[in-house]
């Protein structure tokens, strides 16, 4: 019991449970297995973006280009697939990762080595990648009949009554948790984010770590592009518009610090679940679906406010401790 209460995301878990109870009372129809699975599937794309975003946020950066990266990778994969139906679908998955890595590497290079503020650098690439997505799509739409079944299967195929996209999300989640928790490179990301100077003194190469964080974030955004088009069997250049803000919102809900250093993969998972419930629960209430964005905005503000209040009170406690010495 003590161990559970000492779990660092315990507050988030309570928040999630509270939300679920509320949802259960108001919209009991949410709690069938099929409804839950469909809810998660509809929000699955955000997991990839949010985990990638978290890794960048932990370094103290931000990546506004993930929505555009998603679109670029989605457009490239879909357009090539529609003309090369016979190529095995796994090729498109790998291709989406490659596109994402290239996009992320460019961000990482500009931020890590050219020392441009992440906010502005990725604002620029957000435009650039979106523009390329349009250019390559030629403004075209792809509809379900143009998207091959094996391609769609990567998201839709039911394995043990859970769609493939959720299994992939689970794999990414475990891999990210393993990487951030147990790999030297992952831990270096935290070290840079919590104290750059100490990290440099400890011999950690700042530029390289930042570069790596953006590459991972880009790779996940690229993957999410392919999975998006497979999941909805739909593609155009404007997909994923504004998803970067959603991803940041999920991270903030999941307790990731925007100033770097703090944030866990499991926290992001909880944040994602919370956001999914909110979205779904709102959409089930008649006439409330238009409330979605407004409520999400309020929820984030409140979450950050609580976060700041907690930090302040711990500072106060610290001063009190010091006061006792005088």
């Amino acid at each position, binding site marked *: 019991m003590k161990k559970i209460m000492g779990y660092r995301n315990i507050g988030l878990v309570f928040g999630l449970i509270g939300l679920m109870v509320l949802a259960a009372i108001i919209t009991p129809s949410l709690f069938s297995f099929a409804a839950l699975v469909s809810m998660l599937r509809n929000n699955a794309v955000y997991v990839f973006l949010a985990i990638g975003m978290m890794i960048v946020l932990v370094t103290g950066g931000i990546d506004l280009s993930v929505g555009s990266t998603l679109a670029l990778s989605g457009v490239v994969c879909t357009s090539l697939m529609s003309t090369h139906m016979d190529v095995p679908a796994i090729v498109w998955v790998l291709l989406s990762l490659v596109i994402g890595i290239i996009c992320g590497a460019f961000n990482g290079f500009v931020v890590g080595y050219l020392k441009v503020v992440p906010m502005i650098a990725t604002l620029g690439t957000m435009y650039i990648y979106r523009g390329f997505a349009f250019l390559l799509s030629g403004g075209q739409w792809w509809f379900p009949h143009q998207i091959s079944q094996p391609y769609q299967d990567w998201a839709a195929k039911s394995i043990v009554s859970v769609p493939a996209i959720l299994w992939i999300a689970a794999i990414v989640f475990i891999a990210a948790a393993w990487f951030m928790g147990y*790999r030297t490179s992952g*831990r270096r990301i935290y070290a840079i984010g919590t*104290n750059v100077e*100490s990290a440099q003194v400890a*011999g950690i190469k700042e530029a390289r770590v930042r570069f790596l964080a953006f590459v991972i974030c880009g790779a996940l955004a690229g993957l999410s592009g392919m999975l998006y088009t497979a999941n909805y069997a739909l593609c155009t250049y404007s997909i994923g518009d504004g998803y970067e803000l959603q991803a940041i919102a999920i991270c903030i809900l999941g307790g990731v610090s925007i100033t770097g*250093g703090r944030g866990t993969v499991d926290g992001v998972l909880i944040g994602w679940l919370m956001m999914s419930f909110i979205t779904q629960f709102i959409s089930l209430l008649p006439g409330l679906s238009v409330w979605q964005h407004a409520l999400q905005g309020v929820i984030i503000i409140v979450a950050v406010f609580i976060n700041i209040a907690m930090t302040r009170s711990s500072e106060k406690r610290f001063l*009190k401790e010091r006061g006792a*010495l005088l």
Partner: protein
Amino acid sequence: MSEQNYILELKDVVKTFGGVTALNGVSFQLKKGEIHALMGENGAGKSTFIKVITGVHQPDSGIMLLEGERIAPKSTIDSAKMGIAAIYQHVTAFPDLSVTENIFMGQEIKNKLGMYDWRQMHKRAKELIEPLSKEIDVTKPMGSLSVAAQQLVEIAKALSRDARILIMDEPTASLSTNECEELYAIAERLRNEGVSIILISHRFEDMYRLATRVTVFRDAQYIGCWDVDKISNQKLIGAMVGRELDQMYPEKTAKIGETVLKVEHISKEGYFKDISLEVKRGEILALTGLVGAGRTEVCQTIFGIMNPDSGTISLEGKQIQVKSPVEAFRHGIGLLPENRQTQGLVNELPIYQNVSSADMNHFAKAHMIDEKAEIQNAIDLCQRISLKAKDISAPPSSLSGGNQQKVVFAKLLSMPLKVLILDEPTKGIDVGAKYSIYEIMNELASNGYAIIMVSSEMPEVLGMADRIVVMKSGHVSGEFNNGEVSQEMLMAASLGEHRKEGSA
């Protein structure tokens, strides 16, 4: 004594920064398995000395011997490999990472797959921490621990790297009595295990409890090394403060008038407790003590940057509330901040705009700035303090330290003030320029300003002040009239020898 007995030896080490000599031919010997205290005033060169040993700075000349072999560490990573570790008063580690990870940063335990073996690391960390403290949870983030606990973690980290030489910089400065006792026990145990410790401390108690020998630095120079049991308190203080009053101080001509500012029993949790002081028209009151004694915080409270938990401030007999610098200025209280670069100047703006930044109403009509009037106003103020500048539309960074400080002075003089608080007004200013700052202070006093000067330099305090208040760990530890006090007495009060009003 033959060299073989020394684990660490430094000979004639010189280190200069720009034109400032931080270490001037310093020598030092550390015996194997001894605790060696290093003492000296603020700015005597102790911290530069540590940084040279740990490889943060490279000496200009001189040699370092580790067990008789020459070494020249280029970084803290280098020195750590040689078995030298330093533990600082303010720990700068990774506050968001766990204790375990802080201990093993850079030398993590991994399994065959290259993964962090957290179980093993936590276990090892526990083994390292347990003898030092039973209460530290190694899985907690470093930032959630008390300062004392963080220091213990740093010690554990040093031990995990087989440190043979441990440098402890003011380890007891922020510890309670109990925590000090624990630390003493740990230090003694380490010594018995063969670790050599350099202990830097202002507390005589630390030295008597632990050290067998003590080395004193003063003004970047090596003064001497004594066995602790063969040197008296008086002699040691003499060695530390024996600085000659070679600096000239201008004759003070101001007439002291009635009390202007009276501060009574102000306290601020975590910073200072029950501070009372008063300053009169034309008087220079020095507020001295060691760095970290709470002097700056008292000044910031009077100026409204911080708000006191209790106590009162009155100006010319009337009680006032100062909640912000804006209100302080309105009441006529000005502060020359301690760090002119980060608190006093805007280096991106021209000198004249810096001068006018605090009070723009002189030359602004309906909130629009009349630039001609602004420049004229700035020129007048700069001439009043004889600023030496070729072009006042250049940024302040083009000036020398002394002239930069004058720009901040000019800024304060643009307003009708009654009380001026000067926090280390001559810090980082070369000797020649100091004199002109003193002249300005005297002139201001003659013009009827009541001045509070915070200073760590005893000669400056004795040369300039009419009255002196000494602070130690957030308390007033002595109050003296100038002329009836010596450097030794001030030092003794700073170190905590005097608790009550010190009479000569």
